[in-house]
Each structure stands twice: as structure tokens, then as C-alpha cells.
């Protein structure tokens, strides 16, 4: 009987070992994963084939294979809308928001998971309650606050990338905090003790022991923070201007009152998603790293 945990493949042949997975498991897995892949990739395929069609064909009758292929959309997207600039803005904003968010969340989660202190419950409950308010209602008050800060201190937060970074990093904070607290909690205290014995302070223990042990969780949280910032539309639409506009809002620029350049929308979306998916491909390795079992015994 087999465990659902990773096992290195044995060299030399495909003989069925007694602990190999049963045929039913293998077949269930194959069917399930194939169906799931189909479900996931179906719209991606439609986006891809739409991006290679001339405009007339895009929302016409559906065909599995486009009758006419053209790469024109992939060239036009850079001119119709300043896509390169939006891409850069999104990268800067999402990247900064992610780094800061993860740092802040790591510190806070360490405090919540390792210490008992007064106000801990209130803090966690308050932070969680921020997820219950619909985003629309934050919009105007937050804009007001940024304008006031701008008026009193001269630091313009609206219309700037900095204001957006601040906003996004806070948006992803509650969930990051909760998840990291959970991931940290599953790192045994014995590891911390071992680090103290070696002469580290609490911060040393954090960075030497806890973080590496919870690395998959941190990666997951970083991905979440990045994608939150990458895909946010509402606040970006109000808080950016032409120079600082991000992708999520900028993509709507392919749609005007009468004409919607669907093929370009699809092409642009695929182009900007390629680096993100490539990032996923690189990162997914780290999601398995850092097993702690056996280290303490």
C-alpha cells in the first residue's frame, strides 16, 4: 500500500514493487488529472486561438481551429495601448508589494504564533474582520485619506505607484498573516529551542530555523500577495493616472465604445501571463522544499 507522499523513482525497470500504488489509484489519478487539465486549459486554448484570428472572426461562430491565422494582434497590442509601460508598472507595484507584504507578515506571524501577549486575540480578529467588508466601500474613504495625506504632507499617494503599493501590501496582509501563523505553528518549537541553545536570539531563530522550515508556506503567501497586486482592478482604476496605470486596468483600454479588439485583448493577456506562469514553473520546486521531519530526532 502506498503513501500519498513523494517517493523517488526506483532505477532499473518497471517491476511492480509491493508498495507500488494500486492500478485503481493510478487510473483514477490519470482520469482526474486529465479531466482537470482539460477544464483548466479550455479557456486558455480559446484565448490562444482567438489571439491569432483577424478581428472579424473572433466572436463569430465557434470553431476548434481558426480558419485564418495571423500574428498581427501580437504586434498591434504594443501600439494600441502602451502595454510595455503598463507591464512595467504592474511588475514594480506587484513586486514591491509582495516583498514588503511578506516581510511584514513574517514578523507579525512569528509574534502571533510564538508568543502570548495581551491584545493578541483582538489583533487577529480585527485583521480577519477586514476581509468581510466589500472592497467597494473602502475605495472612497481610502482615496480621501490619501488626498488628505497628500495635502498635509506633500507626499502624493494617489496617482502614484507608492500609494498603490501601500494599498496592495495591506490588502494581502490579513490572509498572509493567518496563513503564515498556521504554517509557522506547524513548525515544532523544538527547532526554536535548538536554535536558542546554539546562541541565537528570537530573530535569529526566526530567520535561521522557522523561515526555512516554513518556506513552502512563505512561497505560497508570496504568490498570493503578488497575484493580489497583479490582478486588482478597482483601486488601480481610481488611484492611477496615465503614467502609473497597471496592466489589470490597462487591458480594458482595448475596449472602446464601439470597437472591442478581442483578438488583441487575448493576445495581450497571454503575453503578460507568460512571465507569471514561468515564475510559477520556477517556484513550484520550492513548494516541496524544507521538510522538517527527522531533523529534531
Amino acid at each position, binding site marked *: 500500500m502506498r503513501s500519498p507522499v513523494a517517493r523517488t523513482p526506483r532505477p532499473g525497470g518497471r517491476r511492480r514493487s509491493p508498495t507500488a500504488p494500486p492500478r485503481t489509484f493510478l487510473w483514477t489519478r490519470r482520469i482526474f488529472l486529465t479531466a482537470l487539465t482539460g477544464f483548466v486549459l479550455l479557456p486558455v486554448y480559446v484565448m490562444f486561438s482567438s489571439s491569432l484570428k483577424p*478581428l*472579424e472572426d473572433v*466572436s*463569430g461562430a465557434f470553431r476548434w481551429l481558426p480558419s485564418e491565422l495571423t500574428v498581427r494582434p501580437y504586434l498591434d497590442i504594443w*501600439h*494600441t*495601448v*502602451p502595454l510595455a509601460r503598463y507591464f512595467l508598472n504592474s511588475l514594480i507595484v506587484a513586486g514591491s508589494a509582495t516583498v514588503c507584504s511578506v516581510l511584514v507578515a513574517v514578523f507579525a506571524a512569528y509574534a502571533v504564533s510564538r508568543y502570548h501577549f*495581551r*491584545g493578541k486575540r*483582538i489583533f487577529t480578529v*480585527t485583521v480577519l474582520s477586514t476581509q468581510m467588508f466589500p472592497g467597494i466601500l473602502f*475605495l*472612497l*474613504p481610502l*482615496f*480621501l*485619506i490619501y*488626498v*488628505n495625506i*497628500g*495635502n*498635509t504632507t506633500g507626499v502624493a499617494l*494617489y496617482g502614484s505607484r507608492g500609494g498603490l503599493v501601500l494599498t496592495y501590501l495591506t490588502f494581502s496582509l490579513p490572509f498572509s498573516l493567518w496563513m503564515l501563523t498556521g504554517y509557522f505553528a506547524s513548525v515544532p518549537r523544538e527547532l526554536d529551542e535548538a536554535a536558542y541553545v546554539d546562541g541565537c536570539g528570537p530573530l535569529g531563530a526566526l530567520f535561521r530555523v522557522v523561515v526555512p522550515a516554513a518556506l513552502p508556506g512563505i512561497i505560497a503567501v508570496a504568490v498570493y500577495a503578488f497575484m493580489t497586486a497583479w490582478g486588482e482592478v478597482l483601486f488601480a*482604476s*481610481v488611484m492611477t*493616472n*496615465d503614467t502609473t496605470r497597471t496592466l489589470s*486596468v490597462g487591458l*480594458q*483600454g*482595448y*475596449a*472602446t*465604445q*464601439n*470597437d*472591442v*479588439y478581442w483578438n488583441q485583448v487575448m493576445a495581450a493577456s497571454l503575453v503578460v501571463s507568460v512571465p507569471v506562469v514561468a515564475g510559477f514553473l520556477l517556484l513550484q520546486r520550492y513548494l516541496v522544499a524544507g521538510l522538517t521531519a527527522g531533523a529534531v530526532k
Partner: protein
Amino acid sequence: MRILRAATVTATVTALAAVAAGCGGGSGFGGGGSDDSPRSLTYWASNQGPNVEADKKILGPELKKFERRTGIKVKLEVIPWPELLNRILAATTSGQGPDVLNIGNTWSASLQATGALLSWDRKNFAAIGGRDRFLAPALDATGAAGKDPAAVPLYSLAYALYYNKRMFQEAGISKPPATWDELVADGKRIAKDGKWGLGAEGGQLTNNIHQAFALGKQHGADFFDAAGKPSFTSDGAVAAVKQYIDFMAKDKIIAPGNAEYGQNQSLRDFATGRTAMVLWQAAATTFSADGMKPGDWGVAPVPVPSGTPGTGRQINSMLAGINIAVFKNTRNLRGAQKFVRFMTSDAEQRLLNKAYGSIPPVKAAQRDPAFDRKDTKVLRETLTQSAAPLPQIAEESQFETSVGTAIKDLFADAAAGHPVTTASVKARLAKAQQQMAQ
């Protein structure tokens, strides 16, 4: 102890909120602006061209021209439609916004009610050449009746009937329909073998409202009574909406699939020869982009119950357009007025409206032969003779949403095969009216 801590937290947050609130609302919208920074202006333009970059290319040289003449530098930002209202809202709430901006003319009354826009009284109009330069119907779409306009007309448009010449020829129809009965008859002749007579954007709330409004005028109904209260269930309003829905439900000249159209699929259907007629504003560029040649389609005025288009019951289109407005707390009032004068000057009006395919609301500029070509001629005549603005009330967008949704739901009923009767139409409109009461 825990209570004390909770109280401290609450108090801190409330205090911070009070501070933010106290400074909130900006400096408000005081008197009539100032002239603190006479050398620069911020202008928010709406997206009128095929895309934002095209708009910048069209407006850029004009703004340079303005700078050369007046020495005022104009910072342009072209804002896509999905964002524009949100941005204006944020600007209104915080007091932090542009000096001059474009607004859809249906927003005029709502924005006027916020008190954020400069009123164009006689003095201000004198600064741009006087009221009489502008088309009277276009001026009606600049704010509530009886009040000074909150904006000045910039680009104007109306609806027209586009028809596929070849499909008409094949069906043996020699000229476009001038009355609704003729339209239905023509549509029925064409509607077979996967082809349909008329296209409708049933899922698009604004389009629904526009059609219902024009039909309402023809039935003598106004959707709002003289006191500004909603009257969606008057006989005329119900008849108007029912007539529009019946094109799908009874006459069967609109394909059922049109009930869910919300991304201009009806234009695509027309361009690919699936539909023979469509009612739209300026669609020429879309048809060309979709592969039609200019000779393939013809333009005619939107039909009327009988006779020819005119005023009163012969109105056949809502008056569409863009207005240009000034934010009350602008820091360059003189400059803003100069800019509006520049944008509404005869020369600029001719140039910009030609570039955008709209009709100038400035009478003198309309005489340019560019506005007498096939498409634009019909639009211009409709605009000057038989178009009326949507109700200029503060709750205009609520009206659009509630009645537009009612029509969308009725189309869904018709498409699903449920019966559409006067009673069912009235019921839905009654529900929409109740939503207005909030």
C-alpha cells in the same frame, strides 16, 4: 483588562478616523474657482477615438496649438470609459481633480447636483461666444431644466438606421423603411434561413434606454412627469417598451440570442450579414473594421410611426453626446474658460468632430461639407430636427439602470419563449419605478 485594551483600540481608531474625517471632503467646492496657477491646466478627455493612443494623437496637436496661442500648458489625460465615472466620483468627493473634463451628456444633471461643476451663466457663456452658437437640443442636455447649464456641448451624435443594401436587394426591397410598420414588414421578409431582420443589444442597459426613450416620445410618454417623478407605467411608456420587445417576441425579426448581447455583437452580426438592419449611433468605423465596404450599407433616419421625423411625437432619437465641463475649484478659471472657448471654436469643432465621426453642436461648424456625407448627413439632420435629450434629472443613472434592466429581463423572457403581454411589461416597469423611489 481585556475590555480596557479593546476600548483603547477602538478609541484610537475612532480618533484617527475623526482626524481623517475632519480633513475629509477636501476644501469643498467654494465660490467660483481662482486664478492661482494661470500657466497650466489639467484636462481629462474621454475616449472618443478607436483607442486611447489615437485620442492622444488627435488632441495632442490641438493642445499644442492652444499653448502657442495662450501660453497655457495643458496636461492631457485620456481616460477609458470604464474608469471615467469612478475617477470623477473620487475627484468630486475629495476636491482633487482636473480643471476641465469631458462628461457624457447624460451625466450632466447628476454631476450638476453635486455642485462640483461650474455653472455656465450668461457671463461665462459670453466668454465663449454666447449661447446662440450652440444647437438648442444639445444645450438642453447640459443640466436640469430651469437651471444654468453645468457644461457646454462638445461632440454630438444621434441614432440612425443602418441597413444592408445587398440583403435588401435580395429580398426585393427598394428603399429603407420610414415607418415602424414598414420596418417590421421588411424585417419579416428577410428573417428566414438563419438571417434576421433587426439587431438589438438587449443586454446593454444604455442602448435599451435610448431605444425605449425615443419610442416613448412617439407614444407621447416621457418616463418622468412634469414634476420630475417617475411615471414608467403610463400607457405610452408601456406601449413603447412593448413595441420594442415585440420585435423579438411577436414579430420575430430579432434573433433570440440578441437578448444577451452586451459587447456590441449586434454590430458584428450586421457586418457579417446575419442581420439586415441595426439602430446605432456612429457605427461606420466599426463596420469597416469588421470587413464591410462603405458601399455595402446604407443609412436612413430611424423610423417613426407615420410621416417624417420632427419634433414632439415625431422624435426618433435621443440626443447623444459629450459635454465639456469645468470643475468649480479649478485654480485657473480664466485659463479653463479660454480652453473651453478654444475647444468650442468653429475651427476646432470642425476638426475634432471630423476626426471623431460626430456632429458639431456648434451651428456654424455644422455647415462644413464633411458633415454632409452619407452617414453624417442623416445623423446631422436627425440631430438638428428630431432628437431630444434624455431626462435631465439627478437620478438619471438610476433610471438607466432600473428601466434598462427591466427591458433586458423582458428580452430574456421573450428569448426563452415566455409570453410578453402588456400586463407583464407593466409589471416589470412598475418594479423598476419602485426601485427609483429609494
